């Protein structure tokens, strides 16, 4: 079942005012409490785009990733796939969306069922989406997939259980399974943070090659600026803080010349493997080291209690994400 032809100007993925609340406290009689993990986020991805979503732990980047995949329903706002609200789709359209939007998780040890062989893990999606029709075709397709992700000879790997694979190999299987149904949109959520340092680049290269080869659109979620820069070198990077997007722009522009005070302090704090350089960078002049709790988000700009440049308006008015040049967007009153 194909979606009807859509306007080519419509982005593949559109996120419009997505907000997601989680209930944290309260019981039968106590007052209900909510935290806002994703707060009124707007962005869009054209076909073939690479967008790295960077933020510290707990900033809501994984929740945003899950929203774009319709694994979570937004409390308000919309997720559009080819211009269509995914939560308003009919059954067939939604099934088509599900096939087209896939994820690679952080922890390869948790993604694969330890009781199943690699073949048993790879086969079900292929038959479910009728990509391969009989056992022989499934066999051929799984072998092809393993060759694609560099697990050679495939025959040997198909019979193994996950316990007999290394972390890097398991992550390759997870990637193979995600691309097996020919998705158009791939979310990689901290996909290499559990892979050994010396193998990380290989997995990133593999993911990037596959992305290019199959023309996939990629949302790459990470806390590591170095990894984001490597993966999205020709793409964009988007910085998130306490549920809000604070800055978006071409990767190297943002990293070499950050604009938002939060991005600036982050970039200045990242240790780099160059002793003279990393020691010459002073401490960012933050006013407070403590990240505010999501249950008590500061009013106005969420960064204002820590921001060294904060002015009076910053505590009163929420800054909008606005364009400062053709490709760069910043949510800060100073611009």
């Amino acid at each position: 079942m194909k979606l009807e032809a859509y306007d080519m100007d419509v982005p593949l993925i559109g996120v419009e005012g997505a907000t997601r609340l989680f209930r944290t406290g309260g019981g039968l009689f106590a007052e209900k409490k909510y935290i806002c993990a994703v707060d009124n986020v707007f962005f869009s991805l054209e076909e073939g785009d690479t967008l790295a979503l960077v933020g510290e732990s707990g900033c809501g980047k994984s929740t945003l990733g899950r929203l774009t995949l319709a694994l979570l329903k937004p409390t308000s706002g919309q997720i559009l796939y080819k211009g269509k609200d995914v939560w308003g789709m009919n059954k067939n359209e939604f099934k088509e969306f599900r096939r087209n939007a896939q994820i690679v998780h952080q922890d390869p040890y948790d993604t694969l069922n330890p009781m199943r062989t690699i073949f048993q893990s790879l086969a079900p999606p292929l038959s479910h989406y009728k990509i391969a029709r009989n056992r022989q075709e499934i066999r051929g397709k799984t072998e092809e997939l393993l060759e694609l992700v560099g697990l050679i000879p495939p025959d040997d790997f198909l019979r193994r259980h996950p316990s007999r694979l290394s972390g890097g190999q398991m992550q390759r299987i997870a990637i193979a399974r995600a691309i097996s149904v020919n998705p158009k949109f791939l979310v990689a959520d901290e996909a290499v943070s559990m892979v050994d340092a010396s193998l990380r680049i290989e997995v990133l290269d593999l993911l990037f090659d596959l992305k290019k080869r199959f023309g996939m659109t990629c949302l790459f979620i990470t806390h590591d600026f170095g990894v984001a820069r490597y993966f999205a070198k020709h793409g964009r990077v988007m910085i998130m803080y306490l549920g809000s997007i604070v800055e978006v722009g071409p990767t190297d522009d943002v990293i070499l010349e950050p604009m938002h005070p939060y991005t600036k302090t982050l970039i200045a704090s990242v240790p780099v493997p160059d002793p003279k350089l990393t020691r010459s960078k002073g401490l960012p002049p933050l006013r407070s080291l403590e990240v505010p709790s999501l249950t008590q988000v500061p009013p106005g700009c969420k960064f204002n209690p820590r921001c060294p440049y904060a002015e009076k308006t910053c505590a009163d008015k929420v800054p909008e994400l606005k364009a400062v040049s053709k490709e760069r967007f910043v949510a800060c009153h100073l611009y």
Partner: protein
Amino acid sequence: MEEPLLRVRGLTVEFRVPRGILRAVDKVDLDIQKGEILGLAGESGCGKSVLAHAIIKQVDPNGYIKEGEMIFEDKDVFSLSEEDLRRFRWKDAAIIFQGAQNSLNPVMRVVGHMTDTAFAHEKTSRDDVVKSSFELVRFVRLDAGKVLKLFPHELSGGMKQRIVSAMSLLLKPKLLILDEPTSALDVLTQKYFLKLMRDIHEELGITMLFITHDLGTIAEIADRVAIMYLANIVEIGSVDEIFYDPKHPYTDALIKSIPSIVGEVGDVKPVPGPVPDPVFPPPGCRFHPRCSFASESCAKEKPALRDIGGARLVACHLCDSVNPARAS
């Protein structure tokens, strides 16, 4: 050269695992000089944490120290009695292990942790402990009057980490071992924590062994660096030597494999080949299957860590003839 604070010789630690014997630390020699910050870096599973814990003679139940010698000043650590060992830990060598900030007792106030620690190791009065805790908590840049009365759940991750650091300094140890102390902290807190550790180091002159997988952190804090690969130390040198002029091909490859926010993205290269199974490590030089310079002798004979001048130690047969940093 001055006598080192800690001298490790031929240390071997093994673990019994279902598939056989895993040698996590293989005949390691290491000196820690008085007053330095020695960074110990390597990938996950290379044995760096096991080595750190072995210094205070602490090994998991399925593991054992097979052989080796550990001389701390003039004490032979492995032949200390239980009682002396207890005194050695925390008073001579304190360790902040990975995730220590999550090991605080949830129903005990910060001040209780301090007094508990002090009473367990020396006879002292409560007032003295509270007084020195007050100073230490202030020293780690926290509001001592307030924080000492709080419970762990009232503190943020970064604050807990600083409390643990303050606790480790309570008995004025000569050596502080930090095992991945920053891996659970966010980038900003990490930067401040490293600065704090430098300040502590400079003000108290305390010797530190800083263990991490993150070379950026090592570049930031260490005076000298030891690089570990598959249970062996492959190279030791000053931080500048290690980062600007690596002699061991593994050191060079590891540094080149880090995606960073500086430098050219195109210069980043993966370390070739898979990480070998540590239960059945390759013969000869452990790195030879992945090394682009490897020759026949590398597969046969294991290179010893040898002095190539200027307190620089390298375990490579070829380090006289090849220069990995320039070759690629």
